[in-house]
């Protein structure tokens, strides 16, 4: 008792980054440049390199990244787009907001879109698939690609949680026609507010996205087509530029924490499963999600011991009120539904101390009396 383990720790992050962050803010403010300025351009260049692709386009947030890509690729009324039912709402909402119909395919035990389930969900109207690299773990993109290719589907990675993750030596963000990232304050690479990006190797798509995010303005006085205002703030880009070099360290710390959890929770396999990297994968561990018996009881018990946890997410997307009109029912995606009662996200952030991690492990072992 007594030791607090917060789920996130912004004050620790600020204490470590204070000098670099303030310098970046100061530099940006002194220039008086706020809309699509030099910081945005520099970040886009660096982020494209990080993902191993040619183009990055900074946008207002991860949700907009998905909406703009779908729009740019012409997804609209009459189309269906398949995604995972256990994702954050934005993956499905982006589809619906483009006028298309969100469809779902069940996930595997690893919480990721299952290629065989995807195959079964495809109809004549399916135009695209959005595999979600949930928790920072990249989907089996080779298998998904094979299915997508035979049916001519566009593959858009939802990499909102997967900055820096790898799959068979390839980087998250380089595995589809385009990929969408979020730099929300809770993400591994985080801004001080909402921020996002799209990455792609497709130059024409990149050009279209640059117009779509900025009113369709080809120049100050020429409107090529009606677009949105969805720009990555220059100030947020400055924050991201300051943090980007530290990303490998953040990821290493999170991966070290994951390893300590796995070792500490060994022997509990009959009551809980811990996430592991698939062969050839390097997971980013945005979330460390265990699947466990008596989830709600465990969460309450940990809370009493000062440990904050979260559930991502307790209700699958097809059972949400928002999906009312889509005609799904309980039982449609049994694996996602089964997991929704068992998943629990443990604190995994880079500022956890070894003592805090051991406290969490001990508390879990106490709960299961082991």
């Amino acid at each position, binding site marked *: 008792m007594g030791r607090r383990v917060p789920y*996130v720790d912004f004050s620790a992050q600020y*204490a470590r980054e204070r000098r670099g962050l303030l310098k970046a803010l100061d530099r940006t403010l002194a220039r008086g440049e706020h*809309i699509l300025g030099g910081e945005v351009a520099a970040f886009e260049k660096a982020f494209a390199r990080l993902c191993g692709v040619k183009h990055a386009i900074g946008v207002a947030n*991860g949700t907009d990244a998905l909406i703009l890509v779908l729009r740019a690729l012409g997804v609209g009324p009459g189309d269906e787009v398949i995604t995972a039912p256990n994702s954050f709402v934005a993956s499905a909402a982006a589809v619906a*907001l483009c006028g298309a119909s969100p469809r779902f395919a069940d996930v595997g035990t690893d919480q990721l879109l299952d290629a065989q389930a995807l195959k079964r969900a495809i109809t004549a109207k399916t135009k695209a698939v959005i595999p979600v690299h949930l928790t920072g773990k990249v989907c089996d993109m080779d298998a998904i690609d094979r299915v997508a290719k035979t049916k001519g589907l566009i593959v858009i990675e939802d990499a909102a949680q997967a900055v820096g993750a790898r799959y068979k030596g390839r980087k998250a963000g380089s595995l589809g026609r385009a990929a969408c990232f979020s730099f929300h304050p809770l993400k591994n690479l985080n801004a001080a*507010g909402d921020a996002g990006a799209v990455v792609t190797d497709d130059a024409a798509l990149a050009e279209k996205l640059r117009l779509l995010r900025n*009113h369709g303005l080809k120049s100050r006085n020429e409107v090529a087509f009606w*677009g949105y*205002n969805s720009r990555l703030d220059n100030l947020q880009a400055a924050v991201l530029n300051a943090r980007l070099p530290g990303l490998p360290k953040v990821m290493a710390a999170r991966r070290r924490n994951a390893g300590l959890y796995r070792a500490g929770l060994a022997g509990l396999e009959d009551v809980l499963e811990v996430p592991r990297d698939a062969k050839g994968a390097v997971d980013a561990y945005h979330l460390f999600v265990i699947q466990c018996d008596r989830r709600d009881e465990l969460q309450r018990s940990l809370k009493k011991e000062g440990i904050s946890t979260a559930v991502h997410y307790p209700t699958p997307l097809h059972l949400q009120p*928002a999906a009312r009109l889509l005609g799904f029912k309980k039982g449609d995606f049994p694996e996602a539904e089964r997991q929704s009662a068992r998943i629990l996200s443990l604190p995994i952030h880079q500022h956890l101390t070894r003592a805090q991690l051991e406290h969490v492990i001990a508390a879990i072992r106490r709960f299961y009396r082991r």
Partner: protein
Amino acid sequence: MKTARKPLKVRYSYLARQFASIDPILADIKKLVASGDFTLGAPVRRFEESFAKLIGAKHAVGVGSGTDALFLSLKALGVGPGDEVITAANTFVATAGAIETAGARVVFVDCDDKFVIDPSKIEDAVTKKTKALLPVHWGGQPWDMDAVLSIAKKKGLPVVEDACQSIGAAVGARKAGSVGAAAGFSLHPLKNLNVWGDGGIITTNDAKTAESLRLLRNHGMSSRDEYAFYAYNSRLDSLQAVVGNHLIKDFEWITQTRIDNAKRIEGALKGIKQLWFPPRAKNERHVYHLYQFLAEDRDGLLKHLQALGVDAKVHYPVPLHLQPASRRLGYKAGDFPVAEAQARRTITLPVHQHLTDEEIEHMIGCVKDFYGA
């Protein structure tokens, strides 16, 4: 026209000067960054309360940008495919973009000699499909509230006020943003009340509209784990709200300074016969986001001013109905003669609150030189 006047840089953007004394703001930003209250946090709620009070509206909802403020207001009123929305032809692209990206069709109406929608031309544009009016309080000049609101009432159409450029504008005691079903404002860095990136805010007097906007801007989340409907992510950043909370204290000074600057320039230029100024009504408060008038040989004047260091601009040289984006809407040159004539002759001078006496006199002198006045 030949002149010995020396160039003096008169910037359109005052941000570098605004940032000259930002330590109190930075101190609050540091607190915010350490607290992690980034998403719809306490600074946003505080800003919304102050802003609603400033406009005299019951509710204010902070969003990602002025464009989103209009877009989400239209969505909240149920505007979508098959609908038409009426606006002015001489507006910024975002007004029409908001209508079109909401799935509706934009219908343009000509403007009057004050650069705002001509109420006498609205009724002819109303069809069975018209779902809303989106008149633009242009550049700080409010539209004719009596006329527009009475047409809206007669036709049973809600009015979404595009007040993106007109924070603080008023007709009599009625402020822009307090008379429609909803109103969209922009807090873009160049606006009279600005933040340091994109930001916007919506005002409304209707509690239900406010509630639906709060869901629309935040994934439709009725709680952390329940999504009432599919919706957007369009939030005013807490960090930007911190900036807004500081600058809103100076709002009356900002507004009055811009008005004073405009009056001073106009007083000095009024006699020049090659210039034409919009009528200024006594009961209307124009807040001069843009200080705009019409000029003979506009392009010549523009070049002359720029050569002498003045960041003069044109808002805008091509009306929206003649933009490539309007191709499918079927408009042609000649459809909106007032807007088209203005587009050829309008010019905008810097009028911001950080202008110095020397800069104002320089601009006046440059214009006078050009016309030999």
